[in-house]
């Protein structure tokens, strides 16, 4: 591999990793604060992509579609937490798994009913549709760079909110000691609703920004969910920082594995995960 190709592949890996972070961050946030393992997290990624497709069809504006999809996702998160997830707090992980797997089936069925099973596509928004000449005949799509920058901004905002704001303080407090937070007169159930809704929204927003560079198909949520779990397990369950580092690692490992060891590329990220777990059984940044 010559140096220019190496740089292109590096960009590919980082950009893929950043997108993975955006999806995985909600999963790890919800687990860290609430102790809920939401297997339907990938379904929200799918819902985000389908919503983006639907609203772009209706309005033609990607920016508007992104905002309205995010709001709808927030509402879905709110409703799901209030009606379903709430039942789980005093139950074990197996019950959580059963309920959230059930939700996957419900979301998949709804997707089939509402939007059918044909693969769909969203056009890249006009303003971002250019490509930058990179090396030789390769051009790099501006939209992919936009996605990477967007993910970095989201990571920055999350960092700020969690470390500098009152909500973030509560989230951190909730992570380390629920009972104490409740004793101090904080309405923990409201906090849980907010955190879960934000988690759902993050996943759906990832689906929206990924829509123009993905094919929107049934089951797209399940594929991404597995990769997300690898990210979260490597980073340490519940750690946002871990999810960030883990996502970048997985993105880079996956990209370079497919070039350097194509025969093993399908299992490389799992081998990498196993290797990390051997060194750090709780993941890199486990609390």
């Amino acid at each position, binding site marked *: 591999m010559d140096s*220019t*190709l190496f740089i292109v592949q590096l960009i590919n890996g980082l950009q893929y990793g950043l997108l993975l972070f955006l999806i995985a961050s909600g999963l790890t946030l919800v687990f860290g604060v609430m102790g809920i393992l939401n297997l339907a997290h990938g379904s929200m990624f799918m819902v985000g992509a389908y919503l983006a497709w639907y609203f772009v069809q209706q309005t033609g504006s990607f920016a508007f579609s992104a905002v309205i999809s995010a709001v709808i996702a927030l509402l879905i998160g709110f409703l799901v937490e209030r009606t379903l997830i709430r039942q789980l707090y005093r139950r074990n992980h197996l019950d959580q798994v059963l309920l959230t797997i059930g939700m996957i089936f419900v979301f998949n069925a709804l997707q089939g009913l509402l939007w059918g099973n044909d693969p769909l596509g969203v056009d890249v928004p006009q303003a971002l549709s250019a490509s930058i000449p990179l090396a030789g005949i390769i051009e790099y799509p501006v939209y992919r760079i936009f996605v990477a920058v967007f993910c970095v901004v989201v990571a920055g905002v999350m960092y700020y909110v969690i470390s500098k704001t009152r909500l973030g303080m509560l989230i951190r407090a909730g992570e380390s000691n629920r009972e104490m937070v409740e004793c101090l007169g904080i309405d923990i159930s409201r906090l849980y609703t907010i955190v879960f809704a934000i988690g759902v929204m993050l996943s759906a927003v990832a689906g929206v920004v990924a829509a123009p560079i993905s094919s929107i198909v049934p089951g797209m949520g399940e594929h991404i969910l597995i990769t997300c779990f690898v990210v979260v397990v490597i980073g340490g369950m519940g750690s946002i920082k871990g999810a960030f580092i883990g996502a970048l690692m997985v993105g880079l490992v996956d990209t370079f594995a497919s070039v350097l060891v194509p025969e093993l590329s399908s299992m490389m990220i799992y081998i990498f995960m196993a290797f990390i777990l051997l060194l750090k059984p709780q993941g890199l940044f486990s609390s």
Partner: protein
Amino acid sequence: MKNKNKILNTALLGMSLVSLSTTLVAAEQDPIKVGVMLPFSGVYGGLGEATRNGLKMALQEHAADLQGRKIEFIEMDTEAKPSRAPEIANSLLNKSHADFIIGPVHSGVAMGMIKVLKDKDTIMIIPNAGVNAATGPLCAPNIFRTSFSAWQPSYPMGKVALEQGFKKVVTLSWNYGFGQESLDAFEESFTSGGGEIVKKMLVPFPKTEFQSYLSEIGSIQPDAVFVFFAGGGAVKFVKDYDAMGLKGKIPLLGAGFLTEGTLEAQGDSAEGILTTLHYADPLKNEENQTFRRGYADKFGKPSDLYAVQGYDTGLMIASAVKALNGDISDQKALIHALENTKVKSPRGDFTFSKAHNPIQNIYLRRVENGENQVVKLAASALEDPARGCSM
């Protein structure tokens, strides 16, 4: 309470006796049982639905050929899961006693079905799954296919690529049976004519993160790229190929599935792609025009390749039932009738090879204005070599 139960039991017994006697009387006029094993949910749900629509449409249009016999459909959703195939096939064979079992879409499911149905007292007709083995090493008298073998659509593209003056080609596909068989078929004709495969890339299935592969293609700069992808993967690949600036610089060739049912989602990115396949929507022949109109009227949406394959499966059944005057009880005679069917298909007439795979035309198509326009006949009456079939 006891008495009441007794009465109920007697009544039930009586009813079943009545129904038994009617079954005996009606033996000749029993409906023909058609088991349908298609994916109605999940990624291939749309394909399953189109296939079923086509199948039913043909059998309705040719109801007169069935010599008064009704068709009873028993529909099973395979969800395109190979692990479920043997169980469903078993139930259709042994519980429902289906005369015909139609399916599947997915090649993995096909392998599971064949294991159960090979040489059994039913006729299996594959309306899509193209795995070579089904009409190769695993061929059997009671297994037919109305679609294609993996080899068929890709083999003629090797010759086309040479005609276009391409010498060095990169091939790329998902790393699974059908994809590899497609690449092999292309390679077979391309290298035998003097072409060179400079790199063969296999992407783990169902990964759709293609950036690293596209970057590598950009640095190799071959004369052309030949790929097999279908469905959502095809949409993504074609869009990414364009976004990475490769479209228009390195011609993209593919087995026809690359641009089947995906053109709307691919948009402008698909323009100019060359593919080879046994069908194209805009084919000018009369059967196709009539079929397309009829299908759109009936189901309220445009027909596609999968609808055609389902339709031809229906035509085949109707024609065999007609040839036997409605009596399909003798399996040997039924197989003989099916073997000799000449299907007047929307894709053009086709017949069956010794291995029960269609001998059919393969068309070269180019995407123009969001449609697969026929450029020319890439191969006429192409027969799969049926390697490994000893029938």
